């Protein structure tokens, strides 16, 4: 027999749906704002009230990737006609793309900052999750002397806001030459993510029955082989969930990147706000930089969404 829903249940469901929609709108509104601004003409970016309907433009992205300067005088019709389409959109905005002596287009700092972000976030995530997985496995499967104290010590590294140690870290990094280096930021982000990774992974490891490994040990495998062939595939959900969180933390980190780097290893978060245009702040360029910056996390999370959802509820149900 089909379950009959009472009118109060139906009413509650409607309220819940409205609430969910409202929350969704609140969460998505800033993303929409950034995405729409990234495609707006510069003069529509800061209108009051905001412009919702407009002809999307690619010019903010052209400006984002190129070095520009203010036009002193308008380009001649020949110059304008000879220019490629992406240069013309910059002319239209009253700017010109800077070229070197050989006529080569000068890139802006954004692509290299974006690459820095990718290199640093991916490497620190791999390291934090890798070390966290091994450490969690050790704590989960073996009797470790002072286990509770050690785990508390690991957790205690999260008890201060990381930025509190920014100045001492800066001085230490300067002393050892790690300032403005990829390795420096990778070490820093790995260290900050490690405690989180160990604790999260320990929860997942504890949930994997140790009989799986024991079966593999009896089946003729070494503990290392059992770890890689049995434990790791079983821990994939936990690894994915931990990786997403570590990646987001490293990807979005602003304060240390601002203090510890200035050019060579600078990541995108401190760079994007510095792109205030060659004259007045160009919000469309900042929005396009931010929009591109959001994509890797969104793609990464989307790809791992199934693991992530399972990971969120993992351990909640005792089988």
């Amino acid at each position, binding site marked *: 027999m089909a379950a009959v829903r009472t009118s109060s249940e139906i009413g509650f469901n409607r309220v819940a749906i409205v609430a969910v929609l409202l929350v969704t709108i609140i969460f998505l509104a800033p993303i929409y704002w950034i995405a729409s601004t990234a495609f707006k003409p510069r003069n529509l970016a800061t209108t009051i009230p905001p412009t919702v309907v407009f002809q999307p433009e690619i010019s903010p992205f052209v400006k984002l990737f190129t070095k520009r300067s203010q036009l002193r005088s308008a380009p001649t019709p020949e110059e304008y006609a000879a220019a490629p389409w992406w240069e013309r959109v910059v002319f239209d905005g009253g700017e010109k793309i800077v070229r070197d002596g050989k006529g080569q287009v000068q890139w802006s700092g954004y692509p290299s900052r974006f690459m820095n972000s990718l290199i640093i976030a991916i490497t620190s995530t791999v390291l934090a999750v890798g070390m966290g997985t091994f450490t969690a496995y050790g704590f989960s499967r073996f009797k470790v002397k002072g286990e509770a104290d050690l785990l508390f010590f690991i957790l205690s590294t999260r008890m201060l806001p990381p930025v509190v140690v920014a100045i001492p870290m800066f001085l230490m990094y300067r002393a050892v030459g790690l300032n403005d280096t990829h390795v420096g930021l990778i070490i820093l982000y790995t260290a900050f993510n490690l405690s989180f990774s160990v604790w999260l992974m320990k929860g997942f490891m504890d949930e994997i*029955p140790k*009989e*799986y490994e*024991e*079966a*593999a*040990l*009896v*089946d*003729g*495998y*070494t503990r290392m*082989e059992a770890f890689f*062939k*049995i434990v790791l*595939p*079983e821990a*994939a959900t936990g690894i994915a969930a931990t990786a997403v969180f570590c990646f987001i933390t490293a990807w979005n980190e602003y304060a240390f990147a601002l203090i510890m780097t200035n050019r060579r290893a600078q990541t995108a978060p401190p760079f994007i706000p510095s792109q205030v245009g060659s004259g007045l702040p160009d919000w469309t360029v900042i929005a396009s930089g931010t929009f591109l910056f959001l994509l890797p996390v969104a793609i990464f999370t989307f790809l791992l969404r199934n693991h992530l959802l399972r990971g969120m509820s993992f351990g909640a149900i005792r089988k």
Partner: protein
Amino acid sequence: MTQIELRGVQKFFGAVQVIKDLNLKIADNEFIVLLGQSGCGKTTTLRAIAGLETIDEGDIFIDGKPVQHLKAADRDIAMVFQSFSLYPHMSVYENIAFPLRATRKSKTEIDSEVRSVAKTLQITDLLDKKPSALSGGDMQRVAIGRALVRRPKAMLMDEPIGALDAKLREEMRAEIKRLHIKQGSTTIYVTHDQIEAMSLADRIVIMHAGVLQQVGTPDEVYSQPANLFVAQFVGSPVMNVTDAAVAETGSAVSVTVGGAASGFEFPQALLSKLNGHAGRQLALGIRPEGVLIRREATEGFVPVDTHIVEPLGSFDIVDLKVGTELLRARTKSGFVAGPGERVFARIDPTQAHFFDKASGKSLEVRL
């Protein structure tokens, strides 16, 4: 040819000794069942043989070779776990092939061996499925298949059918027995279920508090229990154990239970077989089927009142009030109408067991 021997094995978990001086010889092709309550050390013993648990003292020999220092992988044994422990991310085929891959066999060899084991266990049609898609019985078949495929020296089974429902357990019990007869490998099986133990074992090893209590065939442990623990642990319904006083009454011997006015009649030979223990504190053990009941007064039968009747389908268990004690008797279904009925009871001397109350050991009286 695989013999397993445990010599003076001791195991501690912190200050708690879980295996106490265990000595056991298991013959080739033998099906041994380690039987005992939870925490008696049976699983630890099995895990020690498997190499999943270290031992603190003693030796474990497989085919005469000491193996206590060898890793599990090097002992050439297979184990079936209670939780089946099938690798969830692998198909049934991959699960069964997994132990063979460790031996670096060729793909064709692995394939033919996996298919041959699958055929024996009638799980060929399941080879492509994931463990999560299997029923409990099928999971257990796959777990056994994974253990058999390597043709190990010995098979260790830790309550392999404990997680199944009653009907499936019965089916799997028969299947395990059939497989053992067919494959003929030395098998050590751990269970707390005496029915499993009785129906599967060539010999049963009964353990209690880390100490081996008795090793014997199912018939031996049932009909000749070595001590009070075995007497009460093996058999269902449980054996009656009660304090008993033995006295000579002319040509016969009277065994009084619970301070009753009249004792049960035993042959004169009991006194000599008790060998001087008659005056000491004795415990009488008698299984419910050894308590005989008549409705009419019969010579040698003592008048008693019924107390509680438990109908169990094919038979009833009737509690008889004998002095201050209750003796449970097994009767035909409906033989006794209900509580408070006067009947006449006798203890079958050939089924009676006498134990020294102080040590709990059987006095091995066979009448």
